[in-house]
């Protein structure tokens, strides 16, 4: 178990360094081995946590508060499973997307190290170590955006400034915690932080930084240009996985460190921001001119649902986590299809999509299936996530969320059909489909099917999420 946690971080990290230092067939071999090894280690860790429950690992044998503690509980394992599942399939897609492309040279070291950074973030039980992981995630994610050049360069630079600001706010919070109790271990902080105003200020600073990194309305301005202008595999990773990292950390400190300080006012504020994000993001997706821009604004909207867990609490927590996983799969599928569209048609203009499903039948099928989960139609992971959120809202008579969730659902249907409807009209076949077409269509189809399959696997996921009681009580 302890070594599974170590390998989950070490394997993609070594593979990332080798992807930079090697070249040719050997480089490809080590990238493939790295992806396979990281996925296998993640699977082993998930099995261990599901079977034996949560486990701590004191790095180097140094106990808290001195050393760094890794902690694998249900919440960590759930997000590592999402990372490995989406990561492995997107890696396959990227291999086809970047075949013979200079841009791919930088993609692999950046992406594999990003993988290691996200797993480190999911496993750490240390507030400062989480900051370092956030930095590694930030620099690699910015690199993934900026490597595409042109408009992506500008978007990448803005993303860099935003992500550094977010990190600094988070770090200020960590500094306050350390100055108050003399430890940065999460468990020590949870026990040591009394009813002092310092803890409230620390939480506010950390939450502000993490919300900025998660692109929560109105701090979402950086996301659409960054995600829409990056190369398609990078967009799939950024929208599907990277923003989940900062969201995870916020959920983690909210429940495990500041459970005594997370007051209702702040929770309600986050819920209201979530509702605003759902409405604003969906509206922007409905008027977007390009497929990738539409999918990027849809991310702004979908992040809104995740935030509703903060005011709702209880069953809304696993609901939001489930929704995050479904969104990770569906959104990665959509960006992958958007990339296939751009490569086959040479553009991703929604106005010129007429009959495009004839060129990319499997691709648009995958887009529609991912749309089912994104809209929240049964049977899909998105549906179950929304259902858990709705029932929590009904339990507490929260009219705002009871109204916002169906409204967001209708609007999501609106923007998904904006792509599907014209593509299916007057089918046309491409004169000469590119040889890579199937390789660009199959991975998103697998991702979309996985998002649907989440609709049938709620109970094992809930059991996994309850290991170590990350949401307090029975979670």
């Amino acid at each position, binding site marked *: 178990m302890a070594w599974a946690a170590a390998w989950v971080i070490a394997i993609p*990290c070594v593979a990332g360094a080798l992807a930079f230092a090697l*070249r040719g067939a050997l480089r490809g071999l080590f990238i493939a081995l790295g992806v396979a090894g990281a996925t296998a280690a993640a699977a082993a860790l998930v099995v261990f946590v599901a079977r034996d429950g949560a486990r701590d690992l004191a790095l180097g044998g140094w106990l808290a508060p001195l050393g*760094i503690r890794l902690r694998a509980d249900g919440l960590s394992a759930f997000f590592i499973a999402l990372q490995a599942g989406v990561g492995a399939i997107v890696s396959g897609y990227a291999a086809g997307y970047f075949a013979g492309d200079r841009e791919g040279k930088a993609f692999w070291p950046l992406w594999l190290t990003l993988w290691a950074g996200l797993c480190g973030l999911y496993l750490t039980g240390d507030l400062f170590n989480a900051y370092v992981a956030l*930095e590694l995630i930030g620099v690699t994610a910015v690199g993934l955006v900026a490597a595409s050049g042109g408009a992506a360069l500008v978007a990448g630079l803005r993303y860099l400034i935003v992500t550094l600001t977010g990190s600094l706010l988070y770090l200020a919070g960590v500094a306050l915690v350390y100055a108050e109790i003399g430890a940065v271990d999460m468990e020590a902080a949870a026990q040591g932080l009394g009813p002092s105003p310092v803890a409230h200020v620390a939480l506010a600073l950390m939450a502000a930084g993490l919300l900025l990194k998660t692109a929560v309305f109105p701090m979402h301005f950086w996301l659409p240009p960054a995600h829409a202008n990056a190369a398609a595999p990078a967009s799939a990773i950024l929208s599907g996985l990277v923003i989940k990292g900062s969201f995870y950390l916020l959920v983690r400190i909210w429940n495990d460190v500041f459970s005594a300080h997370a007051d209702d006012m702040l929770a309600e504020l986050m819920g209201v921001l979530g509702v605003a994000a759902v409405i604003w993001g969906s509206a922007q997706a409905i008027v977007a001119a390009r497929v990738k821009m539409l999918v990027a604004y849809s991310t702004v909207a979908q992040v809104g649902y995740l935030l509703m867990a903060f005011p709702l609490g209880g069953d809304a927590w696993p609901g939001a986590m489930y929704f995050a996983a479904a969104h990770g799969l569906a959104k990665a599928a959509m960006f992958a299809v958007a990339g296939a569209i751009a490569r086959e048609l040479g553009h991703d203009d929604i106005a010129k999509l007429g009959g495009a499903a004839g060129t990319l039948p499997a691709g648009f099928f995958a887009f529609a299936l991912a749309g089912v989960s994104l809209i929240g139609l049964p049977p899909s992971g998105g549906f179950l996530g929304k259902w858990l959120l709705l029932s929590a809202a009904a339990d507490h008579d929260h009219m705002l969320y009871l109204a916002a969730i169906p409204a967001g659902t209708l609007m999501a249907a609106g923007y998904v059909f904006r792509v599907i409807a014209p593509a299916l009209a007057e089918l046309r076949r491409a004169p000469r489909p590119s040889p890579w077409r199937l390789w660009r269509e199959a991975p998103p189809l697998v991702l979309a099917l996985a998002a649907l399959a989440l609709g049938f696997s709620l109970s094992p996921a809930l059991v996994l999420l309850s290991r170590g009681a990350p949401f307090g009580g029975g979670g």
Partner: protein
Amino acid sequence: MMAWAITAFDALLVALLLWLAWQAIHADGLFRAVISFMVFGLLMAVAWVRLDAPDVALAEAAIGAGVTGALLLSALGRLPERDKEAPADRRARGLAAVGLAALALGGATALATIAWALPAPGLGREVTEALPKSGVDNPVTAVLLNIRAFDTLLEIGVLLLAVIATWALGPMQWSAPARVMSPALPVLGRLLFPMFVLVSAYVLWRGGHAPGGAFPAGALMGAGGVLVFFAGAKPWITGAELDPWRWLLSLGLVAMLVAAVGVGATGRSFFEYPVDLAGLFILALEVAAALSIAILLFALCLGGRPPHRWGSEDEA
């Protein structure tokens, strides 16, 4: 020394720091701003010494003043001449700056009020107690390379990935660095470089028992390399794939990972060095990390992927 003199010195230091910070943001020319920033870094290092944090002072001097200054200057050299701003733009910018400054001042005052009341217990005692098991006598090195080595591993990863990301942006823009004002500069650069290597090696060795270690040593050596490069020398590092320098760039990260995982072969846990060999482990990792950091910082200052072969200017 008399107490009032020390207090006066501190007050002067703080006032100078604030003035330089303002200059770095609002100076008329970018060149002046960069120089203010570098002087700010140097004075900040003095402030850290006054706060009894010599390790932070070393890092601040090497990175805050040295490397960051070199980075900013090399970026400045590539900027096109800026058009004069319209007065209206300037006024709008001034207004926004005043607003932001007011906001920042308010926030900082609130934070300072809270921070004033903090007990700030720290972990100094625990670290001192753990020193005999760590393999070194310098608490900072013990924390960076042993107790919290995982943090350091990720930080070196950040540096490496920053270089990879910079290279991904495209080839470096370099208009032949041969525009040398003084003929003495290349000679001076070549004479100084061995000194940089010597001082770096000393700082690295010192890290085992006194302030020093891999980060300041690597930063110093990197700064030395940048100096020689600006003086007109051609670097060895190239953008060619299979360039052995790529291994040296990743050496720090890979060495730490191999050490962290390798101890598993003897039945230990992740990152658990054998206690009697811990000193050796730390020394080896420090050398690897310092070499990597030096070359990484140098590569960052190139500001893009270096050409496949140095020589003809058109390739650069």
